[in-house]
């Protein structure tokens, strides 16, 4: 069943079949942005959480589901009713200074995120015994070919195919036999791990929340919706697409926690997802361990294409370039060149011997903390812009209260995370 129908189709009578077909035609951006959110950094965060605290932090995930949905729904709605990307709207409605500042921040943090995605591919390649000097360039070429087909629908179909591979996380989670009773209890009853409230725990909670809502996601979904030219009548289906994506991202995150939890139950040490895969060979076999590494690569590549596209779309919107996946490379040369440059440069950094990858990981955390709050504030102001949206599509008061609460939480956590990384001694118990 294809989510992206390529031709005009008609269904007799209305009802369920028509609504289903309509949904399948509209779905894509919400699912892709959410599944791509479980990128290499997320795999690392969720598995580490499971390895260090078991399923004790599982309750965070159901709380994050509505949070991520509400934020992404706002950008989907803005994209549909304005036909513009978020970078374009910030630039047009708040002026060139804010527009360029936000864009510059986004490009820097996106590039550094991209480096971490390729670092994960290199890590998985090493563990699989493959030469990273071959795997990294091939991955970069594949990512460039993925978008350069001149067809939005082809890109969407291929990317949804990569998203579909994430079903394997459920199989792997089932194979490590989680303790379902305690997992279910932990998912609905907040509790502290046995180690109590420590700096490490605080850092982990912030990392889990931070990995669920990243700046690139907001820009990506709005630009994607605008590029797909979703219509006013598609808003309901786009919301369902986003809800399904949010449920998928949280369910897959839980599966990753279960894999880490298998180490926790066996009192095995955790270093990174590649080492975790090796440690789980007794439970999963060599095929299962290899599957974890392949899924890590898939997560990194999905994240890489989404992050690079959000940069290229945003830059094109502000610069006034043609920036659509519907265009051939010759018709939108700057758009594709920027995408390819981001991918190639990030791959090149990872291939540099002794590249300071740990510093880059820290920089991503800090800059995300700097970039996310302003973007959320602009988003909030834009969805309340009644001059542009009118009463029908602007936020309702209840919607604003929910969104303000989400923004306040994210603002506080982003600030704490950035301060924690920048000034480690600021929080005495922090690592």
């Amino acid at each position, binding site marked *: 069943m294809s989510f992206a129908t390529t031709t*005009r189709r008609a269904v007799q009578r209305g009802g369920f079949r028509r609504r289903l077909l*309509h949904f399948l*035609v509209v779905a894509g951006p919400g699912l892709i942005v959410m599944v791509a959110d479980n990128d290499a950094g997320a795999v690392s965060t969720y598995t580490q959480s499971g390895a260090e605290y078991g399923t004790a932090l599982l309750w965070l995930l159901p709380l994050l589901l509505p949070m991520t949905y509400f934020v992404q729904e706002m950008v989907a709605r803005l994209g549909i009713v304005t036909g513009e990307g978020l970078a374009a709207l910030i630039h047009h409605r708040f002026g060139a200074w804010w527009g360029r500042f936000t864009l510059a921040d986004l490009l820097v943090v996106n590039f550094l995120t991209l480096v971490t995605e390729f670092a994960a591919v290199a890590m998985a390649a090493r563990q699989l015994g493959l030469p990273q000097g071959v795997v990294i360039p091939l991955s970069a070429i594949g990512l460039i070919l993925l978008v350069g087909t001149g067809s939005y629908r082809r890109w969407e179909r291929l990317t949804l195919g990569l998203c579909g591979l994430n079903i394997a996380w459920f199989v792997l989670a089932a194979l490590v036999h989680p303790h379902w009773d305690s997992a279910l209890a932990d998912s609905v009853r907040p509790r502290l791990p046995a180690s109590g409230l420590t700096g490490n725990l605080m850092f982990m909670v912030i990392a889990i929340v931070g990995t669920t809502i990243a700046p690139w996601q907001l820009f990506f979904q709005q630009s994607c919706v605008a590029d*797909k030219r979703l219509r006013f009548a598609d808003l309901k289906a786009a919301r369902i697409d986003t809800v399904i994506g949010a449920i998928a991202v949280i369910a897959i995150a839980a599966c990753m926690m279960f894999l880490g939890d298998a180490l926790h139950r066996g009192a095995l040490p955790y270093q990174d997802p590649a080492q975790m895969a090796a440690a789980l060979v007794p439970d999963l076999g060599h095929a299962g361990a290899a599957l974890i590494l392949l899924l890590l690569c898939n997560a990194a590549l999905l994240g890489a294409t989404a992050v690079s596209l959000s940069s290229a779309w945003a830059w094109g919107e502000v610069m006034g370039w043609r920036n659509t996946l519907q265009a051939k490379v010759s018709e939108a040369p700057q758009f594709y060149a920027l995408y390819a440059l981001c991918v190639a440069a990030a791959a090149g950094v990872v291939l540099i011997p002794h590249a300071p990858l740990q510093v880059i990981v820290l920089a991503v955390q800090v800059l995300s903390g700097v970039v996310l709050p302003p973007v959320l504030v602009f988003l909030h102001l834009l969805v309340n812009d009644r001059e542009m949206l009118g009463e029908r599509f602007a936020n309702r008061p209840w919607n604003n209260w929910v969104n303000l609460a989400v923004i306040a939480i994210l603002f506080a956590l982003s600030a704490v995370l950035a301060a924690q990384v920048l000034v480690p001694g600021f929080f005495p118990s922090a690592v």
Partner: protein
Amino acid sequence: MSETTLRDGLFPVIHPLDDVREEKLYRPELGRMRITRGMRVVLTLLQGYLASMLLLLAWRVLTGM
């Protein structure tokens, strides 16, 4: 509404990329948003936040990350 039209008992479901372009709510003539006092306070706070974070970053880089 361009997506669904009742015609000869059929409800056509048209892919957005195959459909006629809709007129959207954003128009370039809107120009810049009218900034209220509350919004100005928010934007000033935002500038303060950004300035303090960048100062922290600069301090951290200068003292060795």
